[in-house]
């Protein structure tokens, strides 16, 4: 048996810049991209080791992969289908499919991209079958309906500890949950999971321009929801 090798070019732009900022300064900040690429390389080397060990019959290595990724996959599925019980079923299906398909993993993408593709396809198959109205969404209609909220300083002036408090996090979840599935999936994969645009496109089976367009709309819808919420709450210390 030939081991799978790390064989693709590293994309140093795989994570968005704001994840490396100090959360205060964005423009002109230095981003340690080389270290990110090296870290990513190490993560993928470790995954490949687990995969090769699994293929040699070591089931414990597969369980290490499950331990490593179940949190992110479960979060992604919860966002896609909302229902916790269904997300659990899909979580189990995803890892079983991954195990059964591990021989077909070539290393052409990262293991996480491959795994998220399986999970996304499982969720989309379910939604197309059981809730087709949630998947068949017209980009154009949504674009025409959405109105731009006047800018307000309230949201950006709200301290991060409030934005990320239990209540703040619940509002973020709610804002994402209200998005159509095609928008929700890209914003979760890009902004929550940190996949590159190319990886998101590969996972959801869309073109990069389509992903960018959906991301633009999704982010602005979430932004407007959060802006409205904090304007109403008046939680800013500056008010």
């Amino acid at each position: 048996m030939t081991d799978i090798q790390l064989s693709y070019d590293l994309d140093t732009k795989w994570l968005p810049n704001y994840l490396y900022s100090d959360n205060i300064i964005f423009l002109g900040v230095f981003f340690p991209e080389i270290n990110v690429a090296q870290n990513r390389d190490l993560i993928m080397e470790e995954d490949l080791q687990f995969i090769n060990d699994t293929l040699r019959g070591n089931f414990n290595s597969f369980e290490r992969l499950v331990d490593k990724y179940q949190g992110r996959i479960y979060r992604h599925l919860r966002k896609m289908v909302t229902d916790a019980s269904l997300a659990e079923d899909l979580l189990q299906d995803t890892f079983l499919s991954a195990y059964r398909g591990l021989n077909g993993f070539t290393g052409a993408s990262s293991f996480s991209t491959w795994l998220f593709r399986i999970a996304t396809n499982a969720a989309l198959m379910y939604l197309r079958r059981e809730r087709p109205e949630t998947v068949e969404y017209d980009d154009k209609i949504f674009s025409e309906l959405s109105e731009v909220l006047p800018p307000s300083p309230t949201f950006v002036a709200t301290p991060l500890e409030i934005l990320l408090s239990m209540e703040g996090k619940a509002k973020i979840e709610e804002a994402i949950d209200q998005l159509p599935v095609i928008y929700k999936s890209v914003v979760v994969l890009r902004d929550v999971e940190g996949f590159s645009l190319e990886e998101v496109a590969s996972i959801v089976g869309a073109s990069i321009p389509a992903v960018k367009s959906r991301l633009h709309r999704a982010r602005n819808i979430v932004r407007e929801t959060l802006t409205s919420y904090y304007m109403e709450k008046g939680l800013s210390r500056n008010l």
Partner: protein
Amino acid sequence: MKKCKDFCDQLSDYLDNELGANECVLIEEHLEKCAPCALIFESLRTTVLVCSEGISDKVPDEVRVRLKEFLRINCRAD
């Protein structure tokens, strides 16, 4: 002449480093002199930041246990 909406339509790509150097300069110059657009940019950046930080990846213990059992039974049956 670009309008505010044109700049705002590019902010998501700007956050993702998807724009060319010239376009970045134009946006940065615009944001410096246009307070409403700067506010939209800041709120968009804050949105992306809180999304990246705000959603837990914790798996309930019972879900974790059932997943492990499910895989042990079904994978080993293969």
